[in-house]
């Protein structure tokens, strides 16, 4: 029994973990903020609304996946070059579809998302109108 335990211990000590991650250091701007705080704030706001494609319920601002790091590098360098955050979002949507953005855009498919609250408000006003009238009479 002791021998078996020792053998197991030796096995785990010697065997290298399976390399399923790359060995390269993170991209220069994966973890480094931009020098200009205004630009960094813009980049941060954008990164928080972009989906990490590797770990799909995290934003790229939130994820430590190497690909998310590369996406942050891309976002920061583009913002530093003066590109508009929405243009960068559009660039990514062109490549990955709407799924990459956490901020829904008004489109033929998504307009109910924006119209529904207004419709519900209108419906509520319609249903309640009687109450208000009766209140006045009383």
């Amino acid at each position, binding site marked *: 029994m002791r021998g078996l335990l020792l053998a197991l211990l030796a096995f785990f000590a010697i065997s290298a973990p399976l390399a399923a991650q790359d060995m390269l250091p993170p*991209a220069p701007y994966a973890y480094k903020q931009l020098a200009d705080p205004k630009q960094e704030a813009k980049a941060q706001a954008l990164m928080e609304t972009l989906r990490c*494609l590797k770990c799909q319920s995290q934003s790229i601002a939130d994820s430590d996946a190497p*690909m998310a790091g590369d996406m942050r590098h891309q976002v920061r360098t583009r913002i530093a070059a003066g590109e508009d955050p929405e243009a960068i979002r559009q660039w990514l949507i062109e490549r990955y579809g709407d*799924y*990459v953005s956490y901020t829904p855009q008004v489109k033929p498919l998504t307009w109910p998302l924006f119209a529904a609250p207004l419709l519900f408000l209108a419906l509520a006003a319609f249903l309640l109108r009687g109450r208000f009238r009766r209140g006045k009479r009383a």
Partner: protein
Amino acid sequence: MSEATAPAKRPGLAVWLPLGLFAGFLALVFVGLYWPADREVSSAFIGKPLPAFDLPPASDERPGLATTVFKQAGKPRLLNVFASWCVPCAVEAPQLAALAKQGVEIDGVAIRDRKEDVARFLGQYGNPFARIGKDDLSQVQLAIGSSGVPETFVVDGKGIIRYQHIGDIRPEDVPLIMRKLAEAGQ
């Protein structure tokens, strides 16, 4: 005994409502269990021209990879996004070798990889690539809408992306890839 004084109302259909709701919920659970949603993000760049890039070589045995290769190819090629650290990339190596043997020209983009690791990987699993570009910042990967490794793109003779295969190419996928190449060549 209330029944004696006031005859109980016969229960209406509403009685069945909670059970119905529960059955609906169960159905939803089973649909989710047996037909899980597709979580793969496919490229929205299919049908569009390959964006311009020029990558340095990732291997001493092969040149780097630039967009011009695809634009001047005249016939469809495969663009394989891979990495030496990616386990399924090793799994699809025999299929890439089989495709190369059938005369398909394959170019590789090595994602976040070191030259020595690429060399070791190619030595171990074979080298089906005509060119291999080194993409250390996943720039080309992002530019073509690829969201992981391995992925394989069929690019026609004019440099238009025609098809994307997500994940490793299994032996049963090879005929499909050949068909997509033939379609792209028409």
